[in-house]
């Protein structure tokens, strides 16, 4: 059990993931990332490609390949450091206490096994249910996630379901054992926007019902704005800003966060002025040890940014990794 009733359920400290390659330099996909999440809370990990957000979640779940990958740091769950657990214990935790929903439902589901079997498999593995009991539980679960006519769907194959249905089935599989932590890695990116709205509503409901903690990984700030309690913005493997969602959107301090918000056209804002993109591309990075990785693209760049990596500082309820952040409302000169 957790140490204290109000302590975090999942406590990630200084997580670092390094990929090694034969005959090439190592890549640090995740570099000293820390965050906590409590039951019933939703945490958003936001970033673009190369930010390390997906690798972070894979590391937490223990799903990274063993070869050529080194994972350091601590992932405390229920008093244990998941990174030190033996594989069979990790397998127990995965699926039962922690579950993951992936981006592409087609490749995450076994195409030659009917949906029903894939769901009942979870029950059989973690809750020792068999036969009729497992099937009944599976049908109920499919119903809960909004798949109509679940009895019939149990016998269908993944390709017979639409993208939205498949994603619901995946969510069903993830929730089968009422996990305490659910990680959703871009679960709606491959789906149409109306289906996305359905799935996000579903996730919201389920999290409320089960009291699970949800980690939402996405690049879509709109999704985060509607769903998450706290938001961590990642860039090139490090967290550059984190705050409660209202604070982050009302007043982004890191130039990258500000740049993202300014470059996205909004449905409810007046059209007209050209968009304000972030110049360069996510591949224009400086290595963190040499300075701020965002410096090559940063409109707020000063000399100090390219000398040494900016430290992560806690400022009034949020954390910020920037030596020349965007001004707050009070600081803007009149």
């Amino acid at each position, binding site marked *: 059990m957790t140490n204290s009733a109000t302590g975090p359920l999942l406590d990630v400290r200084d997580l670092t993931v390094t990929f090694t390659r034969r005959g090439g330099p190592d890549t640090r996909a995740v570099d000293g990332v820390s965050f906590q999440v409590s039951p019933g809370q939703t945490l958003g990990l936001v970033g*673009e*490609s190369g930010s390390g957000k997906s690798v972070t979640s894979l590391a937490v779940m223990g799903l990274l390949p063993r070869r050529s990958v080194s994972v350091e740091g601590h992932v405390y769950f229920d008093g244990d450091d998941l990174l030190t657990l033996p594989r069979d214990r990790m397998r127990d935790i995965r699926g039962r206490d922690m579950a993951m929903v992936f981006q592409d439902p087609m490749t995450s589901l076994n195409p030659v096994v009917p949906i029903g079997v894939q769901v009942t498999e979870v029950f059989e593995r973690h809750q020792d249910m068999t036969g009729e009991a497992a099937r009944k539980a599976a049908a109920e679960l499919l119903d809960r996630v909004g798949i*109509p006519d679940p009895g019939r769907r149990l016998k269908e194959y993944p390709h017979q379901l*639409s*993208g*939205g*249905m498949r994603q619901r089935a995946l969510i069903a599989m993830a929730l089968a054992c009422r996990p305490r932590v659910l990680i959703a890695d871009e679960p709606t990116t491959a789906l*149409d*926007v*109306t*289906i*996305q*709205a*359905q799935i*996000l*509503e579903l996730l919201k409901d389920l999290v409320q019902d089960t009291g699970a903690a949800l980690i939402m990984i996405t*690049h*879509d*700030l*709109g*999704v*985060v*704005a*509607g769903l998450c309690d706290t938001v961590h913005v990642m860039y090139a493997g490090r967290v550059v800003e984190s705050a409660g*969602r*209202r604070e982050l*959107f*009302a007043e982004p301090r890191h130039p990258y966060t500000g*740049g*993202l*918000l300014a*470059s*996205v*056209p*909004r*449905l*409810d804002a007046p*059209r*007209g*002025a*050209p*968009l*304000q*993109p*972030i*110049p*360069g*591309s*996510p*591949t224009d990075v400086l290595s963190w040890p040499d300075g701020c990785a965002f410096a090559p693209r940063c409109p707020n760049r000063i000399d100090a940014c390219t000398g040494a990596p900016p430290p992560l500082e806690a400022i009034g309820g949020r954390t910020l990794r920037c030596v020349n952040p965007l001004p707050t409302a009070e600081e803007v000169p009149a």
Partner: protein
Amino acid sequence: MTEAPAEQGRRRRSIDPTDALLTVDDLQVHFPIRRGILVERQVGAVKAVDGVDLTIPRGSTVGLVGESGCGKSTFGRALLRLVEPTGGSVHFDGTDLLALDDEQMRRMRRQMQMVFQDPMASLDPRQDVESVLTEPLRAHRIEGDHRARARELLDLVGLPATALSRYPHEFSGGQRQRIGIARAIALEPQLIVADEPVSALDVSIQAQVVNLLEELQDRLGLTYLVIAHDLAVVRHIADVVAVMYLGGLVEQAASDELYAAPLHPYTKALMSAVPIPDPEVEDTRQRILLAGDLPSPAAPPPGCRFHTRCPFRQETRCDDERPQLRSVATRPPSHRVACHWAEDIDAGRIQPRASAVVEPDAS
């Protein structure tokens, strides 16, 4: 690459809505479904595009939005005859495209080009950039210094001349899309059909490419048809927006008008589904959720194609009478909608089913 300083206010372009560059009438693209052991017979058809009228005025940007399976990509390709239409007509600058033979059509292609969604897949991995850009020039036997023209094109899209000798895989997604755009303008076309031009790109790069497209339009006098599922991007870039569902248009209006006052239930649902990066708005907005999935285009529902999922569906007319695009008394005539009950819905006399509406959280 340096960005031009941001300009304030709208881009000033004068567009004459009666000067149509492209006119599409009742376009149909039906793909036959064949079955049979020794001899294949046609047993049905996937009606990807089922009767679409569209006019694109010279110099304007028309946006076509819809979700996957609505047929918008097929429509874009059918316009350029990359997919053969099975019915209807397409007139480009007065010329009936469907009446042209292969060689005539090939030559006509100089006037209309396409920008594709996936910049990696639409570039031959074995072709270096110079070859990519000069291939259209060679195909149409255009005279002049091809390499100089290639350099010029790179400059227009903001890429350095050193890119000429490189291969597609050496570039980032955004840069590859720029190469694709450079290729599309190589022949100085009048019309560019952009099929999801930014959806495969990172968010921070999307804005760059959108700006580039707008800049090129101003500089070169291009006309755009932008096909996308991202409503916010389309709203920003387009003058007129058409909404497509299951092979047909359900609503069409000037960009501001559509987003301010959507009339069709599908458009309303679509708009309410788009996430907005503002917690205040997200918490207080009312959402209209659609039930179920898109019906199969091989077997579209009778009557109004949307009626099976419509939160405003009525007892009469919806399931047996297919609505035509028409204007509505309380809205400008250019705002057209294909719904029998549009006026009643707009006035609030018809409400959506309670199960389809998600109220904002109490917190």
